[in-house]
């Protein structure tokens, strides 16, 4: 079969509502992940998003243990967990990466033990680890859209403050910026993003949506504002291309999107270097 035929067959799949929902959900997650990701990498919080992803599994496992709906538990759990981690980071004198390592590896260990008790371990672990973007429902889409609007409004309306806060915190405090409030809101939004995205992407890949497009955008940007826009844009583009790739070759959707993010990141390394060599 020719590539054109394969492409046509893949595109036909998008006539199905589940594929349309997957595409829209992927775009929202890519946009929000890129938007928050740009600040996450510049403030060196990448490990934090990873720890949040792993902790989500802990929340889900407790929901199973208590016989509750995991979707109802995951958002409050992610937010509370994020705030506790932030408190620990501020109050202990340990290195951030070391403390986050303790948190995410122990979250994973406890979650796996709890899952083994409730009998969900064998059947559901892959689903939890890698997610299923094709299983997104309309309610999930609404949640993703609301979160995207919230994040855009927060970052957009406080952009100048966020920029100063990122470049030099003491200068922001000297200008009267309530740093702790801004930091807490940002962390809560990041936790909500992780919580909302877990179902589609899974606990292992959720931080890729936050980190990889933002790093690719950094390689392509000279200004702060371009970086934010490019990061969100690349997040959305990689989601579209990833879902297309998944439809073309019948591959799992979440990993396909991450592979596309990686491809874009590699291009972002190569293109500026090639441009410099050409000059």
């Amino acid at each position, binding site marked *: 079969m020719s590539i054109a035929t394969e492409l046509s067959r893949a595109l036909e799949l998008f006539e199905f509502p589940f594929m349309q929902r997957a595409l829209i959900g992927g775009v929202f997650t890519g946009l929000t992940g890129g938007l928050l990701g740009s600040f996450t990498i510049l403030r060196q919080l990448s490990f934090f998003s990873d720890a949040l992803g792993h902790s989500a599994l802990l929340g889900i496992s407790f929901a199973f243990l208590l016989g509750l709906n995991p979707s109802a538990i995951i958002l409050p759990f992610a937010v509370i967990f994020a705030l506790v981690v932030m408190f620990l980071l501020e109050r202990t004198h340990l290195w951030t990466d070391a403390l986050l390592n303790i948190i995410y590896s122990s979250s994973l260990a406890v979650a796996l033990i709890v899952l083994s008790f409730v009998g969900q371990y064998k059947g559901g672990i892959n689903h939890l680890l890698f997610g299923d973007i094709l299983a997104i429902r309309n309610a999930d889409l609404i949640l993703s859209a609301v979160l995207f609007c919230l994040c855009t409004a927060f970052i957009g*309306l406080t952009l*100048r403050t966020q920029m100063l806060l990122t470049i030099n915190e003491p200068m922001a*405090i000297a200008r009267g*910026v309530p740093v702790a409030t801004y930091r807490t809101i940002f962390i809560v939004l990041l936790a909500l993003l992780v919580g909302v995205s877990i179902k589609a992407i899974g606990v292992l890949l959720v931080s890729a949506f936050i980190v990889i497009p933002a790093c690719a955008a*950094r390689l392509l940007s000279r200004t*702060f*504002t371009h970086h934010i826009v490019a990061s969100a844009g690349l997040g959305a583009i990689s989601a579209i291309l990833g879902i297309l790739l998944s439809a073309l070759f019948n591959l799992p959707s979440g990993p396909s999107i991450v592979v596309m993010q990686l491809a874009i990141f590699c291009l972002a390394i190569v293109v500026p270097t090639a441009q410099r060599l050409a000059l």
Partner: protein
Amino acid sequence: MSETVLAIEQLTVYRDNYAAVQDVSFSLTAGTDTAVVGPNGAGKSTLIQAILGIFPRQKGQIFVLGQPLSQQGKLTAEVRQSIAYLPQNFPFDRRIPMTVAEFVGLGWDRLGLQLPWAGRKPRRKAVREALSRVEAWHLCHQPISSLSGGEIKRVLLAYCLVRPRRLLILDEAPAGLDVRGESEFYQLLYELKQEQGWAILQVSHDLDMVRRHCDRALCLNQTLRCQGTPEVALSSSNLSLTYGSEFVPYHHTCRDY
């Protein structure tokens, strides 16, 4: 009589259960330059941070342009806008993508909720004027990560200059510059002080610079040991009182061989 820009009354600040600054009182008037001198660990940076509201105080009052600084470090947006602060060394992550124009523009903005495109034209105009004044307009589109130490100091002054200020607080701002860079920085700073009528409060270890350029010196070692004109405050007896009796001020002299 010049307006009082900053007034400190019986300020006490604790750090880790000890009084880093105790019962300090002084005031600053417009158009004057005051240096805070003292040995390492004397509480100079703590004093600056308490004035800015970065560090909480345990006792005393701080008034900026007549307005009291609350215990939570709050001032009205208008008064906040009139203060500029240059930290020691200006540490920042050089991987952050930000151009000189973007950074200086942050000094112009009233921080808080606003649309990202609000004030674009007046901001751009103010940035151009500020960068031109410090002879750094050619750096406008450069990433701040590519600047030399001297260029960063100029850009920081443009950040202060981009909106009218009343009080400039510097924490060893010329640190990291070579002798020539430091001299150029101070030259520019004092030209701007004359033009803008800034009240300057600066932490310094350079006693010769304080003698040459400052109107007043505050000798701090936990408490305020003395204050006055540099000739009076930096006399041998006062320096011994501040730095300890073993302190011997050393003056460089050039000799022809």
